[in-house]
């Protein structure tokens, strides 16, 4: 975060205690303030936007789906960082396909959790092993327009390495690794975007540069 205003962090979780823990975690963190806790996304967004980042529990018990929740939080105007307790990869994938900053395990070491929150609050992508392994194992990704190098980076990341170690292993810079991860995330979210018609799919392909568009000579 740059100097000046703190980023406001809200949390949506069934368990008040988790919210309490996060609140305590943020109390000492620089550049971050705790905004609010709500049980459901609907309860949070019923008020005017008062958070820059929302920590969203992946499996809320109100029957809502990650995709719906993320969509309404994004409309509300906040970035979303998903918290999991170690979910099944299908839920993680469902969340990864929508516009989330990242997916973090609740039981991750506090420092790692705090880093992730800070990065997500400033709109950065948070790559974690949970996210990478779920995405890497998704059969949908097989047909996705990823380069060999990108797949390699994703595989290594999914095996539990951090950006620095991946960079070391592939003899590239850490920044390059992060670039790759960002693109992978973008491509993956693209796969998840529903296209309701073939025409739309084609148009999107052109927009995204995967399909060569009609050209005037």
């Amino acid at each position, binding site marked *: 975060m740059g100097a000046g205003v703190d980023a406001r962090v809200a949390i949506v979780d*069934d*368990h008040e*205690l*988790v919210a*309490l*823990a*996060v609140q*305590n*975690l943020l109390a000492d963190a620089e550049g971050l303030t705790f905004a609010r806790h709500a049980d459901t996304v*609907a309860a949070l967004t019923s008020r005017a936007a008062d958070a820059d980042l929302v920590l969203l529990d992946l*499996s809320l*018990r*109100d*029957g809502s*789906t990650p*995709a*719906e929740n993320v969509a309404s939080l994004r409309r509300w105007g906040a970035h979303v960082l998903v918290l999991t*307790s*170690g*979910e*099944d*990869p299908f839920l993680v994938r469902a969340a990864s396909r929508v516009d989330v900053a990242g997916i973090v*395990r*609740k*039981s*991750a*070491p*506090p420092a790692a959790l705090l880093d992730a929150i800070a990065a997500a609050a400033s709109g950065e992508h948070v790559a974690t*092993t*949970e996210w990478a*392994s*779920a995405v*890497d*194992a998704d*059969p949908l990704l097989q047909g996705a327009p990823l380069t060999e190098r990108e797949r390699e980076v994703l*595989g*290594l990341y*999914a*095996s*539990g*390495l*951090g950006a620095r*170690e991946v960079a070391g*292993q592939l003899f590239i810079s850490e920044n390059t690794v992060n670039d790759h991860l960002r693109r992978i995330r973008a491509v993956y979210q693209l796969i998840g975007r*529903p296209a*309701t018609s073939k025409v739309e799919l084609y148009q999107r392909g052109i927009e995204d540069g995967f399909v060569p568009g009609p050209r005037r000579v």
Partner: protein
Amino acid sequence: MSDDESGLRAARLVIIRASAFLIVVVAVVNAGFVSQGEQQGFPLWYTSFGSASGAVTVAVGLLAPLLRARALRLGAALALAMYVVFVALFPLAAHVGQVERMPWLLTASSAAVAAALVAGGVSWGWVTVLFGAMAGVVYRLGFGGFDVGGVINDVHAALTASVICVLGGYVLSVGAGLDEAASVRRAAGSREYAERGRLAARTRTAALVHDEALATLALAASPLPVPRDRLAVQARHAVAMLARLIDDDAGDTASFDAALLAEARAHDAQYLSSAASVPPLPAAVREAFLGAARQALDNSRRHARGTRRTVSVRVTGGTVEVEIADDGVGFDPSLIADDRLGVRQSIVGRMTRVPGGRARVQSMPGEGTRVVLSYAPESRVEVAALGDRRSLRRGAAFVGVGFIVLQTVCAVAMVIAAPSSWPRQVAILLVVVIAAEALRRSPGLVPSRGRTVVVVAAALLGAFITVVAAPTTYGDLWPVVALAFLLVGLALRGRFRTALAAAAVVAVMVVGGGVADGIPLGQIVALTARPALIVVIATVMLLTVRRMQRRIAALHHQAAAAEEQESWSRGARAELRERTDELARTVVPLLSRIGEGQPASADDRHEYAALEGALRDGLRAGSLSREPLRSAVAAARGRGVDVVLLDDSDQSLPEVEVRAVVAWMVDAIAQAQRIAVGRLLPPGRQTVASVTVDGRALVFDGTDQGSVTSFHGE
């Protein structure tokens, strides 16, 4: 009521009743003969025995619904035995009395054939057909009556008996087929649903562990500052929830009504129960109903706040309908995108995935929303067990060939008896053969309209020629019976009504001709009985089989549904008990300790973290969640190492390889200081597993070469 043989039993009922009916007809026809002074002269004991034999058959037919399977077969066997003895004693009776001609009565073997089918199956039936035919030939040779009328009568009697045998065999095969289909379904359903029940219980337990235990343990393990007393409250709550798990199982075994009521209550909806009780539903249908209703209620609560919601159940016939209605804002269903999870997948999809399930969503902006879920048992079993159609066709073909041969015999016999009638006999034989061929060559089971018209026209024309041109005697009327068999063929192939109508017209012609010729009524009855009867019996039996198929299929379906639900609950309960026991050993003690609210030491924290990790592994580690890796990982977590196990394989890895990977990971994780990630890779990669220990990635290589497995030596 449905036992394993209800199909076969129903089939036997149909056949034994047909047998009793045939006996009654035989008695009437015989009375006709007797009234004319024919076929008399037997000693009293023989007549009495014959009557008793018939009475036994009728009695068994009437009492059949009350008899057990064994008693029914024994009764039928008794009736059959009496018939055989009756026929066998004829020489004695003829010797004692004054009999100048073998009586017609002895040749009427159809009823006995039907009894034989019930007593011993198709093979007994054919043996009886053969016995009747042989007895006819032998007795006619020995006691007189080997003339045209006699031979033609015997021919038709044998043919009638054969038709009864083929039809009865078909009915039996339908019954047995239904039973077999049902038992296959039950065996499969029972296993499948026990498994589903287990799965549901496991899912429910996993959800609870995830929502309550995991969250609590993660907080307890983390060094994050959390108020101890609050944590203790949450831990106690988690323990209570886990303890209640096994009691909640009532929610799954409770009646459908109660389960729906619970759903309605949970969503502030009014519940209107149906007047009729809901029939037992297959477990999958139950799950679909409850899941879809829950989703519909949830949608309603989210989009139509503060309105009146009702859940109602209706049972009409076999159809069960659950309606979820509100008087809220409503919406335009056509505007919902196809991929919106709520309506399309969770409601409509859920219902349509079960066979026989449907869902309609009716809504208009401002008009409220009605979601109607319905289920009508599909007659899947009925389709699966059409009976042995092949054997029916084979039997029909056999009878068809016999038919042509025997009608030719009849024609030849008539030409020998009355040489001048040969043009008529040949013409009629030709008509009969052409019609039979037209029927036989029909490509589908049900003959086309054109073929049907040909057969009916041939039957009517042949009957007309015969009645007008020939004197009214049994021998001369052979074509009428032959044509009646053609109509039976028509009925066998599904043209019931046409066959019956044509048979009625033929019967009217014969009666008309007989009256015009001034023949006594008894004789007319005797002449008309066979042609009319075979068509009627064939039609009735086939129609009964159709009805029986539906009824038995429904019966089996209900039994199977009940059994499926039963095994579902059994599976679920067994699984719940296992899980609860396991949780009581592992999770509950630690949660209880947290519930006491004592400050946690670093060792405590590591212990909580180890358990939290183990529970997490239950969700994500797949085939890696096994010994000895589990112990190694627990030990590492106990040292404070953050261990993550991920199974991204498609579970297709051979057991040997999984074991090798596990052994390899055990060694690697034993070295970990801070963090370790073990992962089974998706299929199609160069290696099957990787492990990253404190920032160093290793890949499993499977063989002993390469640096990766020499981790120890470094």
